[in-house]
């Protein structure tokens, strides 16, 4: 696959959950390329989580409904591919790590996926150790996950998922249960993963202030439709994203108020201070 082929191609995707009358996704067309970090944002109920589930196969394999269109990931058509095979391409991190950690010790939990794939034990050992090192949790290897702090649990969940070396990592509101300090640290980690393992990242988040610095593309959903799909600064400078349920960082609001809302719109205090200093000199 050449690098200008999309890694993920969502074509005319529509979906209605079984027993409901409303399309939660409505003719969604999206292409995502390798190594992008894509933020999916929108109102509660706009279809964000549904879109993520359509990418890892939970839809249509686990959630029944009216499914139209197609999702192709790294050459595999999701609707025709078993979830176990998709899991090797697409790693999914839940909002609440308790939903995906369940073994007795951290290292057993991380090894779980690899064991299921019948990877030889010495290789598993090596992979697990390497991953624990890269996530800074080696010292927690033998601890029971339920004793860990939220931030630590989140790292264990991530470790378990990236042990499978997926090409794509999906994070569903990963920071909402974390305090900003830990959240900030987790976001740095995600950025690092993309560098280190060449992963493509999709994140659903409501709050932009912590995540904006690493995002390469922003997709905004409104009632199941894609309304914006562009570089974050391009969208923020033109659009009042608050109308779509997205919380604009204070700095962005201030920049727009002061007429600094162009393609170079500052997105954090540092770039804002710099911009102001330039303006006054």
């Amino acid at each position: 696959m050449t690098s200008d082929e999309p890694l993920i191609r969502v074509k005319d995707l529509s979906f209605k959950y079984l027993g409901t009358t409303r399309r939660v996704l409505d003719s969604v067309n999206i292409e995502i390329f390798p190594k992008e970090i894509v933020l999916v944002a929108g109102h509660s109920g706009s279809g964000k989580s549904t879109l993520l589930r359509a990418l890892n196969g939970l839809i249509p394999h686990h959630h029944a409904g009216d499914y139209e269109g197609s999702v192709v990931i790294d050459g595999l058509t999701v609707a025709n591919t078993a979830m176990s095979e998709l899991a090797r391409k697409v790693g999914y991190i839940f909002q609440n790590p308790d939903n995906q950690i369940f073994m007795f010790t951290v290292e057993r939990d991380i090894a779980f996926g690899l064991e299921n794939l019948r990877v030889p034990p010495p290789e598993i050992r090596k992979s697990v150790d390497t991953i624990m090192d890269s996530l800074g949790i080696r010292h927690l290897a033998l601890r029971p996950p339920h004793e860990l702090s939220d931030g630590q649990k989140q790292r264990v969940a991530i470790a378990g998922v990236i042990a499978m070396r997926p090409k794509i990592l999906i994070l569903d509101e990963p920071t909402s249960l974390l305090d900003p300090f830990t959240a900030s640290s987790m976001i740095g980690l995600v950025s690092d993963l993309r560098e280190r393992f060449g992963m493509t990242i999709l994140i659903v988040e409501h709050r932009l202030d912590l995540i904006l610095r690493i995002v390469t593309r922003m997709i905004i959903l409104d009632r199941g439709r894609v309304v914006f799909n562009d570089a974050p600064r391009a969208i923020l400078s033109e659009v009042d994203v608050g109308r779509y349920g997205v919380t604009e960082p204070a700095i962005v609001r201030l920049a727009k108020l002061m007429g600094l809302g162009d393609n170079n719109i500052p997105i954090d205090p540092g770039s804002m201070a710099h911009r102001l200093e330039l303006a006054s000199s």
Partner: protein
Amino acid sequence: MGEDSTTAEHEVKSSASTTIFSTFGKKDTKEIEIVKFDSVDYSHPSGVAALVNVSLSITRGEFVAVLGTNGAGKSTLVRHINGLLKPTHGTVSVFGESTRERTSAFLSRGVGMVFQNANNQLFAQTVRQELEFALKNFGFDRQTIQDRVEWALNTFSLKEYVDKPPMELSGGEKKRLCIALVLAWDPEILILDEPTVGQDYEQKALLGQIIMKLLGEGKTVMVVTHDVEFIWPLQPRVILMSQGRIIADGSSQEILGNPAVLSKGDVLPPQLVELSRLLGWKNYYPKDVFEAESRIIEQRYNIRVPDRKET
């Protein structure tokens, strides 16, 4: 609010008519101490110390934010106010009475708490029943219950879900329902535990408005939160916790405006504070973008913009 014994029920039902809360409300309201922690320690049954020597006093009508990392003791602290937890040592007094003397069911009439995890608070078959439950328990009459439920459904945009099972709602909607059901019984003190998690921009704006409205009505509001960006414009009193202790207690300007203090609690400052410090501003940090804009223009043109607050 989970007590099942008939004495507790009786206590709660009679509480709707003559209670320390209603008499409390009729006193002259200047400077009434509504919550007091006196050298409180709390240890979990497992032995882990969750609160260490906590003392604080909250005046009626105050707006207080409790900040700190996960595990700092924030939720443990507020659970002492509605009696879900009782101190291991020391005393917690609410409305002038020690919480040891009262059940959590009784205290809940005056202290409404919205849990961090909505799933822990919702259990009825339909949204309507969820909203009605506490009102029935507290002995409100039929008409009042109907009125309060209508109010809640409208204010929180829940009308379309009225006959649906709460579990079918999205995470953000469940949160909204929890806030609605607690406000429906109109407690004197409202405690919100991480109310902005999973909420989109408009829901947060609504929440901010509701908080300001409640404060305007003389209610006391406490918010446990990580979301410094949400509370900064509201400028509450800030209690910063770390490892079971209160490490700072002051105004938003004093605490959220002080990165050295914040870092002791592993809390990041709001963006406008960071910007203020980068631009060399001291004394007063603008609470919203309009104040920030005024300050920037002032600084740039060396003029004084009227009505700017200075401490």
